[in-house]
């Protein structure tokens, strides 16, 4: 058995997938260059208002309730990819028959998904989850399934041997895709016109025509159409290997400059991406956000008045300065701006040079949570604003296998990776990106020989407790040094080449006679580099009130200065 997933009115479906809130409005899709834009597709509500394909955009605009959207190749590309994801989440043998049609082989899937009616319902449900309202038909051959999906709304099951009977009531128009163009469209129209002249309206009437007579008049294509009408055509699927590319994009009619409307759109794109990844049982470890920016000098004056400092990430520093100001401003009505940007289709596209702004979000572990992704992107964009109005948003996800982890009952708790990633991003926003993470010691004797790396909460591994001498030694406390960052400049009085008295202006308790000293311990390194270092270290005891404090004093042999580097604790 074969199933066909068909998206009726594909251009409208792609637009509705990108903007689900338009489902309540009459919608028309137009195409062409101004002023010759024409309506190419309308939804049911728009049809009731008298809007039809072929009208000019100016005519359609007379209807005030109508939402007009330009045809978007990106939206249709994403909808097609989602359609294939839906099909491939059920069967590995999938044919992309057209941009709005996918055929899949269901042989052997009953044991996995149940009966064919259950499979067709599951396919419909998955398509809805991906933002597509699809017709699903199951039949014994691919073409019968295709015709049934084109002709019958919802889910249809055609038992084997009853194809002609079930398909008979369909109009002959379903034999041809409504998205044919050019010569194919002309040829299809010619066929249909001929059939109409003969009084053939349905597939049953076409199937009943004598084969020889039909062959004499329409040739082999006519016989092929008759076989299709009888549901008797048989062929194998042309399997398509859909690449694992997960991309979503939205083009804006009106540029947006605030973070909130951008977050609104990102949320929608992330939901779509995550639904597609989930349908393929995948997650992602890297998200790439590309924003196309528009430089519009007319808005610069307003931004200047915002008066908040900026730091541009784009090549155009002047625009970067002013635009970042808006990103730091309190939110204005965000949704209204998005809707306004989308609905005011008559607004001319802003002229100016476009630049691209790219941010990459690498995750320590594969994740699949749109809300977490959105928050991480928001935090990232707050720290690195794009610096100019945005006219296009492109979001792609690098697929990765789903994380399989199971916590143990007797293992210590560990932070949830998603929560932890959000927390770390928020803390990085407070203290700085390089100031939070895990420690990594470098293979050097330099006192600053460490670096910060990403903190990853792996699944806790229970460490066995061994009562070995080594572990007992490990449990004994170590004298720790509390570092002063940066080191404190000290004035040192020497006696016999050794520190005898210290004055530190920045730390009043760290001054006075040296009660005890050990050293010098000489260190040097990197003499082959520009940043060579050489130093003498002293351990000192200074009187601090009634107690004694121990410090590390450092003499920079290259610079000659003395520093208090830390205090022993």
């Amino acid at each position, binding site marked *: 058995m074969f199933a066909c997933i068909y998206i009726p009115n594909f251009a409208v479906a792609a637009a509705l997938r990108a903007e689900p809130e338009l489902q309540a409005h009459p919608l028309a899709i137009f195409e062409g260059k101004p002023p010759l834009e024409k309506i190419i597709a309308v939804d049911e509500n728009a049809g009731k208002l008298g809007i039809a394909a072929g009208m000019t955009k100016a005519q359609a605009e007379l209807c005030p309730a109508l939402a007009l959207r330009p045809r978007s190749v990106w939206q249709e590309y994403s909808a097609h990819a989602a359609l294939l994801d839906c099909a491939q989440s059920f069967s590995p043998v999938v044919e992309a028959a057209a941009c709005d049609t996918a055929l899949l082989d269901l042989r052997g899937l009953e044991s996995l998904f149940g009966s064919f009616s259950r499979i067709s319902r599951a396919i419909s449900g998955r398509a809805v989850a991906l933002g597509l309202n699809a017709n699903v038909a199951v039949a014994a051959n691919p073409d019968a399934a295709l015709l049934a999906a084109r002709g019958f709304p919802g889910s249809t099951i055609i038992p084997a041997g009853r194809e002609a009977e079930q398909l008979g009531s369909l109009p002959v128009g379903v034999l041809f895709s409504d998205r044919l163009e050019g010569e194919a469209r002309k040829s299809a129209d010619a066929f249909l016109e001929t059939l109409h002249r003969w009084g053939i309206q349905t597939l049953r009437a076409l199937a009943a025509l004598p084969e020889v007579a039909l062959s004499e008049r329409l040739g082999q294509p006519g016989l092929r159409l008759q076989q299709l009408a009888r549901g008797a055509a048989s062929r194998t699927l042309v399997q398509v290997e859909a690449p694992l590319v997960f991309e979503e994009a939205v083009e804006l009619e009106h540029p947006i400059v605030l973070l909130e409307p951008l977050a609104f759109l990102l949320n929608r794109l992330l939901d779509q991406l995550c639904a597609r990844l989930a349908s393929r049982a995948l997650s992602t470890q890297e998200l790439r956000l590309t924003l196309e920016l528009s430089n519009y000098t007319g808005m610069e004056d307003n931004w200047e008045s915002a008066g908040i400092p900026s730091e541009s990430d784009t090549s155009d520093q002047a625009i970067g*300065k002013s635009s970042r100001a808006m990103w730091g401003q309190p939110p204005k009505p965000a949704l209204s701006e998005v809707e306004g940007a989308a609905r005011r289709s008559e607004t001319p596209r802003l002229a100016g040079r476009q630049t691209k702004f790219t941010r990459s979000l690498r995750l320590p572990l594969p994740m699949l949570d749109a809300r977490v992704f959105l928050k991480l992107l928001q935090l990232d964009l707050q720290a690195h604003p794009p610096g100019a109005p945005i006219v296009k948003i492109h979001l792609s996800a690098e697929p990765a296998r789903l994380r399989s982890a199971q916590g143990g009952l007797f293992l210590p708790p560990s932070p949830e990776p998603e929560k932890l990633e959000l927390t770390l991003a928020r803390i990085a926003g407070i203290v700085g990106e390089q100031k939070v993470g895990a420690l990594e010691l470098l293979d050097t004797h330099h006192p600053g020989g460490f670096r910060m790396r990403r903190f990853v909460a792996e699944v806790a591994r229970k460490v066995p407790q061994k009562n070995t001498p080594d572990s007992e030694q490990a449990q004994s406390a170590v004298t720790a040094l509390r570092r002063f960052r940066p080191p404190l400049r000290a004035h040192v009085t020497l006696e016999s080449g050794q520190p005898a008295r210290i004055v530190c202006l920045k730390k009043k308790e760290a001054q006075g006679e040296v009660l005890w000293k050990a050293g010098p311990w000489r260190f040097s390194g990197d003499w082959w580099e520009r940043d060579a270092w050489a130093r003498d270290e002293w351990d000192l005891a200074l009187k601090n009130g009634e107690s004694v404090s121990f410090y590390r004093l450092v003499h920079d042999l290259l610079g000659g200065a003395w520093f208090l580097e*830390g205090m022993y604790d």
Partner: protein
Amino acid sequence: MLAVLAAATRRGEFCALIDASDALNPQSAAAARVDLDRFLWVRCGEDDPRRRGDAGNTHSKRQNAGNWMKFHNRDTAETRLEQVLRATDLLLESGGFGLIVLDLAGVPQQSARRIPLATWFRFRRAVEHKPTILLVLEQQPIAGSCSSLLLQLGVLSTHSELTPKGSAVRPAHAQLLAALEINVELVRSRWERKPARSVRFETKSAWAG
């Protein structure tokens, strides 16, 4: 502190240190055998992103001279404290850590005392029913009755002779800071109503073997 962190990471717990004065010495942590893979270090300090953003260009400085001066006039300790408290809130909310250490030892007492008592109550509520220990290092007790256990630590002396009398003074290069003697006094405990007790132990320097 490092001994507590090492013990917690040895048990397989994840630990976090919120370092108000960026004072941790990584080599000391490694010498104390803290499992660095399970140890999150939050370094608070003057590298506030908001300041870095403001310092971007001359245009910004001109536009925001007022704000910039305000930032400079603010006590850096207060900025650090603000960072510490916000980071602590986030980590407590995140959960999953066995031990969270707030190192306020380098913060001036006047600033540390300005932390409202409500903050400590909030922290206590956050860890009350969780397997998380919140350890606060401070110069003076500031958490009040919110703390379940109050310990006072102090350095007593060193094994090296500080002021040798009647014996020949050894040269500096023959001396070694081998160990510190620490006195720990149990000041208050929520669970035990016993008089204050104290205990002494030694901390060995990493190079003393």
